């Protein structure tokens, strides 16, 4: 059988003696835009950026508290600027998205069985939601009382 010379396959491909080069399809940087599921996945992953943003805000808030009443008043007026409010509303939506996807993942990650039957997913996720509401009410009460 005749063996094709490398030049006739691809001029730019280099071969070594030790290992063949794999063929790999190039994937676009925007691969996640094509399908709803992929988009949902990437948005869920991006929620982590807003989690980090919240921590940074909290650290600045603590630093302002530490510096005294004037610094804290300045920090409060910073939070009241329209740009920051819009950013925080977006961040809030993302962290809620994170919470919902996280709680709904639990039944898949840890299937619960009772008497040989698998407990329905919504029943496994339900306690998380109950806890979420209870903790939210408690934190709200602690902060505003």
């Amino acid at each position: 059988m005749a063996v094709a010379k490398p030049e006739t396959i691809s001029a730019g491909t280099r071969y070594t003696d030790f290992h063949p080069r794999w063929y790999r399809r190039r994937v676009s940087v925007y691969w996640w835009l094509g399908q709803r599921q992929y988009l949902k996945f990437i948005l869920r992953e991006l929620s982590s950026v807003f989690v980090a943003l919240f921590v940074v805000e909290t650290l600045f808030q603590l630093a302002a508290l530490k510096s005294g009443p004037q610094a804290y008043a300045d920090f409060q007026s910073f939070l009241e600027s329209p740009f920051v409010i819009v950013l925080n509303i977006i961040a809030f939506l993302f962290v809620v998205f994170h919470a919902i996807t996280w709680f709904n993942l639990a039944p898949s990650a840890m299937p619960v069985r009772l008497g040989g039957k698998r407990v329905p997913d919504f029943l496994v996720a339900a306690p998380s939601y109950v806890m979420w509401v209870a903790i939210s009410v408690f934190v709200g009460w602690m902060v505003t009382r």
Partner: protein
Amino acid sequence: MAKQSNEAFFWVLFSAGGVVAALLIPVQLFLFGVAFPLGWLGAPSYESLMALVSLPLVRLYLFVLCSLSLFHWAHRFRYTLYDGLRVKHLNEVIFSLCYGGAVVGTAVAAYLLWTIA
């Protein structure tokens, strides 16, 4: 890149942070980032927040919240960059920046909460 054996450790931090972030961040962000600035609810005074932060349990709560949330971010954001932007060749840089950021943030949180009251 981390050794395979470290992956489980980072994953535990990621998932613990995921739980903490899911349960606690929405309410806090809603109150301090949206409801208080827009005047929907009366914002707590400086004195009442200082009284709250002076409680050791509240400081421990804030430390755990900040630290675990950052490690959650580090893990997730790292893989978002790997998969989303397809920048496999930058793995080590991304790893150092993400976990470095989480460690620095944890140290800042510890310092602030230790010295605040």
